[in-house]
């Protein structure tokens, strides 16, 4: 049934449908609304779980790790500094191959202090060994959260569902929250093969010498690569049940014969989609919505980019001193293709800077130059820079 819901509220209701037994979280905007809504569901008897308000994100991640090892389905959410504080545990969870799901309500990292949206937080834990799925809108976030449990439990890998903080979490949209029966039919009860049990005692998290460490890393890496099949299957099965797909590894929209493509992650997809309808005078453009960032879908990306002369990679984070994080990976993934498109790399919307529709025109203007553009942050305003930086070229939005 379609209801007008705030993103956080929708996620809370969806998490309840997935029947986690243990939820732990620490207040950090913007995911706080999710946990507050879960607390209301628990308080009103609509959700049967142990909700633990812990003393830090570090303990939130640790608590759900302990709970999962003791055999319970779990949930937690965080963002920004919370993700960084959790990061040691996030690596640990993935290395131990523990199935669990968390929401990252994407937000910028301090300093400078910002409470607003970008994706620097989840990018910072890119290599933790989690599956990372990015959501373009709140409906995708709802469907992806349900799918995430199935993927995590089938692959024994943790899944981070990334949704843009505020842009999605605090936005009211008509959302279809599925029926409990549908989710139950899709998601069998949690049955963790390595759950701790006094009747069959095992040791989890032992010391591994150089004799075995590379093998453990090899297995983990390949588990992530192979999880791609499960991500596709989980989405296909969900589509059969609900009539909605959430985008598999990546989804492509726009004309097949377009020569210009824009690849991005998260809610920018919606902005670009609306812009392409508005600016009909601009060349036909293919829009690539990268949903699975880990595992990185190399083959699907090559397929999506075949026939393109130019690919613009637009991302909400950067690696200072190098440039685009996603664009570097896109370069690597497309290297060796018969006709590699020219790749242009931009960061946009950092620290919650609004991304106007006009960005679409700006991007087209920027690539209308013979050489691929080096990485830059779009929309930097020269007069706001310190005087000593005024000489550096900036990329301004066309108005």
């Amino acid at each position: 049934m379609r209801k007008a819901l705030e993103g956080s509220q929708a996620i809370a209701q969806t998490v309840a449908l997935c029947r986690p037994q243990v939820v732990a979280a620490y207040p950090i905007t913007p995911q706080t609304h999710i946990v507050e809504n879960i607390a209301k569901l628990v308080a009103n008897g609509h959700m049967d779980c142990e909700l633990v308000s812990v003393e830090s994100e570090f303990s939130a991640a640790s608590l759900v790790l302990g709970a999962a090892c003791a055999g319970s389905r779990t949930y937690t959410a965080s963002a920004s500094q919370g993700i960084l504080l959790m990061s040691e545990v996030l690596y640990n969870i993935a290395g131990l191959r523990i199935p669990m799901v968390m929401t990252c309500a994407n937000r910028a990292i301090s300093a400078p202090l910002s409470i607003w949206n970008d994706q620097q937080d989840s990018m910072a834990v890119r290599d933790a060994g989690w599956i990372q799925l990015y959501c373009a809108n709140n409906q995708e976030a709802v469907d992806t959260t349900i799918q995430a449990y199935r993927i995590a439990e089938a692959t024994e890998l943790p899944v981070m569902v990334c949704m843009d903080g505020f842009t999605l979490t605090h936005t009211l949209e008509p959302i279809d929250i599925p029926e409990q029966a549908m989710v139950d039919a899709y998601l069998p009860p949690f049955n963790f093969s390595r759950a701790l049990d006094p009747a069959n005692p095992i040791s989890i998290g032992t010391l591994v010498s150089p004799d075995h460490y590379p093998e453990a890393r090899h297995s983990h890496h390949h588990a992530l690569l192979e999880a791609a099949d499960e991500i596709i299957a989980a989405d296909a099965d969900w589509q059969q049940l609900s009539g909605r797909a959430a985008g598999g590894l990546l989804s492509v929209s726009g004309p097949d014969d377009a020569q210009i493509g824009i690849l991005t992650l998260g809610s920018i997809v919606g902005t670009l989609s609306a812009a392409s309808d508005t600016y009909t005078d601009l060349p036909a453009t293919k829009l690539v919505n990268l949903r699975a960032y880990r595992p990185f879908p190399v083959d699907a990306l090559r397929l999506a980019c075949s026939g393109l002369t130019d690919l613009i990679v637009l991302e909400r984070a950067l690696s200072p001193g190098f440039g685009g994080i996603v664009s570097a990976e896109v370069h690597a993934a497309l290297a060796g293709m018969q006709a590699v498109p020219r790749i242009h790399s931009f960061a946009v919307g950092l620290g919650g800077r609004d991304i106007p529709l006009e960005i679409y025109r700006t991007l087209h203007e920027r690539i209308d130059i013979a050489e691929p553009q080096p990485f830059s942050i779009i929309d930097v305003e020269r007069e706001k820079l310190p005087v000593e930086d005024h000489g550096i070229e900036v990329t301004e939005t066309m108005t």
Partner: protein
Amino acid sequence: MSTAKQTITADSLVKLRKHQPRFEGIESGHRACLGCGEALAARLVTEAAGPDVMIANATGCLEIFTTPWPESAWRLPWMHSLFENTGAIAAGMEVALKAQGKPTKVLAFGGDGGTFDIGFQALSGMLERGHNVLYVCFDNEAYMNTGIQRSSSTPHAAMTTTSPPGSDRMGKRHLKKDILSIVAAHHIPYAATTSVAYPSDLRKKIRRAMEIEGPTFIQIHSPCPLGWGHDGEYSIKVARLAVQTGLFPIIELERQEMIGSMPIRHPRPVTDYLELQQRFRHLFNKNDARAVEELAHIQALADHNIKHYDLRGDGMDRLDSDGADTVRRGGMRWA
């Protein structure tokens, strides 16, 4: 079958013991050093706690020497996550078991570094939220696993690799943190100290904590021959002297109220304890006025403990076997 009287030999005694139905949570064959106080303490704890437990173990010696993959000394469901999150891991296990309706008790094991220092926040959170977890701190008074570095549990004036004595220093400059008071200040039902030198006291306290629904905390003084600088064969002697000098008071608290202590009828001078350990060697240079002064400081600390915790007791008791072997609880009730 022979009817001849069987002679009991050392070998047959070992076999007989193997047939005793005593539960062992941690097997022999682990890689602890000779005379390791922590290994013995962990065995005593798991024996007393029994098989229906689940363990969250902090990073440290205990974790390292029991689980060199692909081997494990544990016959209990056991997990190690990180150094500083043991309180939260144990809390997670506890709520999961509660959600599943299982009665299994959760134990958390940490060294003094993982408890007093880096894991302190997670421990405090676990205690404050009232999780039904028995947290056991194996206190060997320094970061032994990483090479004997000072922790906030290291006693005053002790030499460690990060508190070496020298022309400007006499070992650790600060006092040993009073973790028991801090833990008890969470108003948890039960917090106690014990020592590996007193196995019956240790077992008794573990069993008592196991019976309690809610957070409980037991600090076990566990000598580290390598870090303290004594032969492995003296571990128990050293641990006992820590108690008999008053430097490590054996006490019990319920909801922050002291309800029992191990009496010391004949206190020993602190030098009896200190002189056995290389970590205090620099205090025995008679030509160094600072050493003489530090010895006086340490004696004053012991005297303070004896007075503060009333460790001399109130006269000789009928069941008191000359001092520190029994624990007196309130009134005439004996544990």
